[in-house]
């Protein structure tokens, strides 16, 4: 049981520092870039060296670290870390023909720079790790945190996920066919019927422990798997619900990772087949865009829904029957191979 006590998110929506999800920010050129705060609570000399992934990750973590400067563990999921720094360093290698290069971009581009910078801010010597398993980076961080909490439930840990859009990964995934060829707005994401999605980025962080008192939400269970067959989703979800849940009717809302890619819709339909008719269906990739750790934003949105007991209209594919949102099921699928289920409940 992972109890979430605080959450913080820098996303393409108005999520930081005070969230307002009712107003939807539109995409531009098939990309949803984060709305960065006007100023970060990071010393200027440190901020200057940070690439975007490190900046938004640390920027979103700072309000949480105020509550737990010596968090007993910092566990971050990021598929790529600082890609913009990575391409800058690549450019240096090519342009200067492997001459004398400056190392700043190289150091900032290593994916563990995000988590280590969070430790560095407060001189924290505790457990620090970075999971980089592409579309299951955040989920593996969740599994890691669940074990830390089981060992020491009374200690507080920082959990989160960060990824950025860079010219580098946008181009590569575009060439790979993962972004739409035609220009569309995020408002029409689920109507396009074509292959590919729109690109996204974000940082979502959580302060967690094993104490239920005054928590916002609880991640009750998580399951990950790999595979390409859509009917795997049906079988695995049925097993997951049998094991952890008992009855589909208790799921008030299903948050689907549907991303407008016609090749992936079938997977989400398999999951929806198992839902009770009372369960509402909500989508979020029109808010975040698609990126490997977008499922962390889904957990953050679930926390927001529990706290405010309202679901932004633009998210709803089907309205829920229950008056109060108590239990949410999240299913996310990355590139048709990496899948995850998370059960999140109101505390």
């Amino acid at each position, binding site marked *: 049981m992972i109890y979430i006590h605080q959450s913080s998110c820098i996303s393409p929506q108005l999520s930081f520092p005070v969230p307002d999800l009712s107003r939807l920010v539109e995409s531009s050129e098939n990309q949803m870039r984060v709305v960065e705060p006007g100023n970060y609570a990071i010393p200027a000399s440190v901020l200057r060296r940070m690439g975007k992934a490190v900046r938004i990750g640390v920027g979103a973590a700072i309000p949480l670290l105020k509550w737990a400067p010596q968090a007993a563990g910092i566990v971050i999921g990021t598929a790529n870390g600082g890609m913009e720094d990575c391409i800058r360093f690549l450019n240096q290698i090519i342009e200067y023909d492997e001459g004398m290069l400056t190392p700043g971009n190289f150091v900032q581009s290593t994916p563990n720079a995000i988590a280590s910078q969070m430790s560095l801010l407060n001189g924290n010597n505790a*457990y620090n790790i970075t999971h980089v398993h592409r579309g299951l980076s955040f989920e593996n961080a969740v599994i890691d945190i669940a074990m830390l909490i089981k060992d020491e439930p009374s200690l507080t840990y920082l959990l989160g996920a960060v990824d950025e859009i860079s010219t580098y990964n946008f181009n*590569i995934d575009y060439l790979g066919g993962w972004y739409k060829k035609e220009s569309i707005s995020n408002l029409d994401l689920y109507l396009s019927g074509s292959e590919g999605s729109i690109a996204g980025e974000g940082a979502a962080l959580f302060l967690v422990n094993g104490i239920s008192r005054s928590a916002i939400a609880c991640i009750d269970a998580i399951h990950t798997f790999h595979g390409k067959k859509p009917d795997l989703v049906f079988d695995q979800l049925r097993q997951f619900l049998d094991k952890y849940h008992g009855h589909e009717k208790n799921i008030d809302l299903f948050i689907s990772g549907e991303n407008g890619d016609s090749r992936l819709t079938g997977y989400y339909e398999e999951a929806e087949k198992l839902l009770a008719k009372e369960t509402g269906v909500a989508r979020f990739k029109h808010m975040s865009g698609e990126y490997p750790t977008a499922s962390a934003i889904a957990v953050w949105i679930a926390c927001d829904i529990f706290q405010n007991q309202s679901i932004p209209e633009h998210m709803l594919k089907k309205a829920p029957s229950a008056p109060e949102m108590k239990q949410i099921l999240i299913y996310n699928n990355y590139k048709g191979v990496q899948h995850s289920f998370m059960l999140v409940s109101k505390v």
Partner: protein
Amino acid sequence: MGRIFVTGIGVISALGDSVSSNREALKSGKCGISLLEMFSSKYSGQLPCGEIKTDNARLRDRLGETRRGITRTSLLALHAFKEAIADALLGPAELESQDTALIGASTVGGMCLTDELYHDATKDSGGSEYLSSYDCSSAFLDLQQVYKLNGIIDTINTACSSSANAILHGARLIRHGLAKRAIVGGADGLAKFTINGFNALRILSNEPCAPFDQNRKGLNLGEGGAFLVLEEESVAASKKSYAEISGYCNTNDSFHPSSLSETGEGPFLAMKGALASAGLEPSAIGFINAHGTGTENNDEAESRAMLRLFSPPPKFASTKSNTGHTLGASGAMEAIYSLLNLRYQEIYPSLHFSEPIQSTGLKPVLHYQPADLQHVMSNSFGFGGNCTSLIFSTPAS
């Protein structure tokens, strides 16, 4: 909770393409570091590296690998994985079980194809066969596919301690009942990206590295793949095992993005924490496979940390003087060498050492020797202050 045993190992490095060839090389004090020659770079023919002199075509051939988009990092991972699972006698039933986890580690991943990456990142159309191969996880997603793995699958990147943390994470998954078996390790191919990165930091030596020597000039990059099969006591019971994983600890030095604190706080806490988790006194450790990169910063900080924790420090050596620094593979590779220390009750010498660091006076083991070992520690410290120490122990008979 049951104990966790290592029941299979596999390694490919500049020393050889099997566990036995690596052991023979270590015993005879062979140095696998030579001038870079396998890929085109400004540093070809100039920079000493722990390079595996087998090209990708040959590696593919030996593995029967015909799929497109497979990088050198993947080939090294596949090679070591294959040896490790054969050693642990794992067949399809065990591999495809939901109880079998795979925890990989890499720092450069598919970016070993630095030039291809640059072109794919910048051109408008076409795209190479490697579009989905550049990230750190691609090698382990390949393994998932080839062996139809169904358990928890993860990739870790904590820079130079990545695969030490893969071992630690796999052991924790077993301890928590989330897997009965975890295949854990890492791989990294040599890359223009890392060579130029470390060169820009001015920590590459133009000679074979001399860990813990007063006049050390820096590190040599290497490449390789290394995997261990960890199994829960009940599963491992009927099998041969190399050792038990008895202790581990992950800490952060929290000092600087790319160098260790002078006192080696992170290394000190990692070694101390590993001892605590194993329930051992410092004096129980018979040998340390040190991180020992050969850089000014690491070797002094690690020495200071050893001096603080142990009185006096046990015998130690750095196998990076044989293999170079294999980054994402190094934690697992050195864990395997530690297991060989225990299995064969022997210590392999550190190379190229002549004079102790003035301020610490520590001297690594310089000659091959038999030894009576029960507990061996393996250290891995990385950029971002990510420090991990592991302890392996011979099963008490």
